């Protein structure tokens, strides 16, 4: 692809890639905006949820996913963790000149397929090609609209001491997969990204545990970051148990070799859930019943300790502070 020069022909080509990929899914795609029937939206609930996110990832294709899939599921999950049913997506793409049309087509098709699987429609979009070096291969921004079912009040500041903290499966797969793919870490273990849409799982969870306080997707910064955000916002302490924290052996080994703490590794299909203690069993059962909830576990509890403080009971019996990182993981030992 060339920047600028191709004029209309070039634009048509790009539009063709995306429009043909999203064909049938986007009825209003010929207008400058998507249009929704409010009465239809209102059948799903009483509040609109609206979110946007930009996706930049290196490499574009990695075991278990690609940037297109990530861009769809990421926004779907951002809606779902608020308790919303995801309905519509927009998609803006910035492409570095020199990008191969074939690669672009693969990404577009992957997005289309991800949207189909998540039951959302990509209703509008835009593409731009920029000079070499002005962006890195391709940046995708997706924006999503969903509708929140009546009566639901999830909030990061709703967690109370005593609440159980759950995750929906093995942690750190995405972060490990990306690092492996990026640096060719010469590891035998093949770790796939956990990239997945979680709205169905969350629906099941909310049916089983209607008292759920909050749900957060543990993407960048891993569960350590999410737990700290929850502890800060709700002014509670949170203690998790290393023995109860679900990790794949391959990820454990990967972290051992790279010296990384899995609690800080990114996930793309994992959520942290806080529920009242009496609903924790029902919540766990609901999670385990869904394919995206395999490996779910209660990993800890909120408490009355120092507000904002997250700690982990280690396998050695000590209790270690799990703090929010300012930058990347950096040795502190002198």
């Amino acid at each position, binding site marked *: 692809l060339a920047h600028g020069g191709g004029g209309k022909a070039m634009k048509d080509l790009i539009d063709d890639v995306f429009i043909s990929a999203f064909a049938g899914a986007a009825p209003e795609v010929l207008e400058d905006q998507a249009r929704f029937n409010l009465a239809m939206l209102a059948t799903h609930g009483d509040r609109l949820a609206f979110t946007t996110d930009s996706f930049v990832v290196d490499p574009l294709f990695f075991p278990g996913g690609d940037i297109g899939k990530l861009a769809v599921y990421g926004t779907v999950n951002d809606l779902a963790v608020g308790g919303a049913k995801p309905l519509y997506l927009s998609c803006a793409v910035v492409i570095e000149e020199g990008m191969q049309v074939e690669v672009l087509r693969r990404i577009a098709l992957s997005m289309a397929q991800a949207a189909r699987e998540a039951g959302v429609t990509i209703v509008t979009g835009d593409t731009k090609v920029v000079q070499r070096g002005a962006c890195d291969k391709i940046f995708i921004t997706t924006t999503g609209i969903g509708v929140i079912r009546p009566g639901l009040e999830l909030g990061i500041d709703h967690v109370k001491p005593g609440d159980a903290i759950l995750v929906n499966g093995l942690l750190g797969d995405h972060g490990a997969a990306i690092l492996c793919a990026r640096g*060719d870490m010469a590891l035998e273990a093949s770790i796939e990204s956990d990239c997945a849409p979680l709205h169905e799982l969350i629906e099941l969870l909310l049916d089983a545990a209607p008292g759920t306080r909050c749900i957060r997707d543990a993407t960048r910064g891993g569960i350590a970051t999410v737990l700290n955000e929850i502890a800060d916002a709700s002014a509670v302490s949170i203690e998790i148990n290393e023995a109860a924290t679900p990790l794949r052996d391959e990820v454990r080994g990967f972290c051992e070799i*790279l*010296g*990384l703490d899995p609690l800080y590794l990114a996930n793309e299909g994992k959520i942290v859930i806080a529920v009242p203690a009496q609903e924790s069993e029902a919540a766990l059962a609901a999670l385990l019943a869904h394919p995206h909830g395999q490996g779910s576990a209660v990993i800890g509890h909120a408490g009355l300790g120092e507000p904002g403080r997250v700690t982990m009971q280690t396998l*050695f019996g000590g209790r270690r502070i799990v703090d929010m990182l300012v930058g990347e*993981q950096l040795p502190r*030992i*002198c």
Partner: protein
Amino acid sequence: MNTPLRMADATSSVEIRVRGRVQGVGFRPTVWRIASRLSLDGDVLNDSQGVLIRVRGVASTIAALVEELRASPPPLAEITAIETRPCEGELESGFVIVDSETGAHARTEISPDAAMCSVCATETLDPFVRRFRYPFTNCTHCGPRLSIVGGVPYDRATTTMAPFPLCQACGAEYRDPADRRFHAEATACHVCGPAARLIRFDGRAFSFEQHSMLDDVDAALSLIQKGEIVAIKALGGYQLACDATRPEAVALLRQRKRRDAKPFALMARDLDVVRRYAMVSEAEAMALESREAPIVLLAATGPEDLPDEIAPGVKTLGFMLPSTPLHLLLLRRMGRPVVMTSGNLSDEPQLIDDVEAAAKLSAIAPFALTHNRDIANRIDDSLVRHMGGRLRVLRRARGYAPASIQLPPGFEPAPEILAYGAELKATFCLIKDGRAVLSQHQGDLEDALTYDDYRKNLVLYRGLFDHRPAALAADLHPEYLSAKLARATARSENLPLVEVQHHHAHAAACLAENGRPLNADPALAIVLDGLGYGSDGAIWGGEFLLADYRRFERLGTFKPVAMPGGAQAIREPWRNLHAHVTAEMGWPAFAMNFGELDLFAALTAKPLASVDAMIKASVNSPSASSCGRLFDAVAAALGICFDRQAYEGEAAARLEAMVSAGTLEEEGDALAYPLPIPNLQGSGLPYIEPLGMWNAVFGDLILKTPASVIAARFHKGLAKSIAAMALKLARRDEEDAPARFDTVALSGGCFHNKVLFEQVVSRLEKLDFVVLTHSRVPANDGGVAFGQAAIAAAHLIDAGRVRQKAS
């Protein structure tokens, strides 16, 4: 003689102000005794500034009083100033101690806990006095202080002695100015004070043969002698004790405490027992018997040996003598050393709470010698080592903290400052009235209990010292929990925050400890440690800084080498070795020249491809110019802690222990490994280049040179290179300019290595440098808070001066 005497014969009234640590140490009764003996009229009282004495008498007699106070103050007192001026008020005849008004007397300083004095020890062992075998005997000259304090003023009511009202006999002593226990806030006896009890942690009843044991304390010893592990509630926390001469007991303790290889501290009844296992110099004996009563690191070269399990891989033993009556009584019948290690699971702080101790220690020790006085503040045993002709405090805790340290000339106008210290070996430091109060060692802040303790102590110290900081100071490191807390506190209390580079803080700690004035010329600070966050965002750890309190210039460094795996590279020394090999000669050259070494095979068995990929892709492989990591790498090359080190600094400690004294002393410098000083590409900074050293080390390994010789040649080569760097940086030979510096300050944890320290000091002194070293403040990160505080003070003093000029 005649005229002045007649002049002096006239009576006058004088007010004497005594400043320093003069409260709660028996100062007023000392004044009372001297004044009464000299027949002076007047009174003495405590107030917010210290002690105030008002006397009427002949000038020469008053001068004699001041002289005697200066010459022989009470043992725990530390006078910083005595000022006299004419007294206006009327004085009654006779001399009285005026009771402190409640609230009016803010304590000026809290004393450290002090080892029992000889008089109390004698009493405790005397069957004909009422404190015979009383484990909590103390007086104004000795006993618990910081460990029992909960608030100010320092009165019995604010200590954990509050629940023990004085009996009649103790009360009489307490009120009698002539008695050694006048206002001894912690005084007690069998009748009124706390009692020791031997219990089973599981609460089950048990009996010991009453007729053959003197009491519970003695019975605890019998258990130890039988090979049991016994928990002991000591002064600043629980301890775990067992017979040090029984390998199986020591091994069991190690296993149950989950403590891999870190040496155990020992306690012995007296010096004679210590001398059977270790060499004790005069200075070391004095340290052992001092009021501070620290653990003293001694050369394990006595006629008898202790099991290897005590201190695996190192040739030193850490001994202390009984410092409380409880320990004195416990070890009375014990002719052998006892392991006396902190009562905790590995990496956690020492337990102080009875319930928690029962929950956590019962799996280690079935029995506990406990008592019913609470420990208010956790204080570890201190650790000192005699190096380069002086005692050096390596871990500053019981006996030393919170004794204040005088700041150098020029720091008098410093406002109150609170410095948050580093991360491992955390301490904090307050500045008040031109003095620095460095907290006790608290440990690794990442441990939640340690962090809680650190926060609790911050509140305690601020209360005890009535401290209202005008500014905070912290490390530059973005992730230190101490620095994060400082940043949050600066925001919430709206205080300025001075962020201090780690090695600059080390440097300032050494300068300030040595009294180097605020406006002195910069000195070369050689700071060698593991890692610290550099002002360029890189990781530093072997630095040559031209520094004063205000600023520093980085003149030289160690070679930056990747740390594949970040902190994991510290735990696993082979990673550093591999990174060094690939960064220096490259793997193919290493394989070709040294492929026959066992070392080559051992490295090949590691996931090298992954590690190489990490370094190449810059995944968690920060580059560090560290001296500590060079030690790790060399140790790994000799097979020391190749796979893993069990505790921080283990590899370096074992490498030091391996050094052959013969090689060190007799072999010429020519065989010391070469570490030349080229300039870094880019920055042009001179650095210590290890390539030649590696070729020599591997060459020696091929020649089957003993590891002890290799270790000696490494230490020597490194010291030689460090001295050469100092000489090069001084630029003495430049014609039209004076040398850049004449003083060198040494700091950083690597200088706890005795061989390196002594080699570097003697080489620098031979080059006619003035060498400043640490002794009261640890060279490792335990001293960083002190340096931060000095640097922040310098900044604030300058800022104050600028403001004054402007207005």
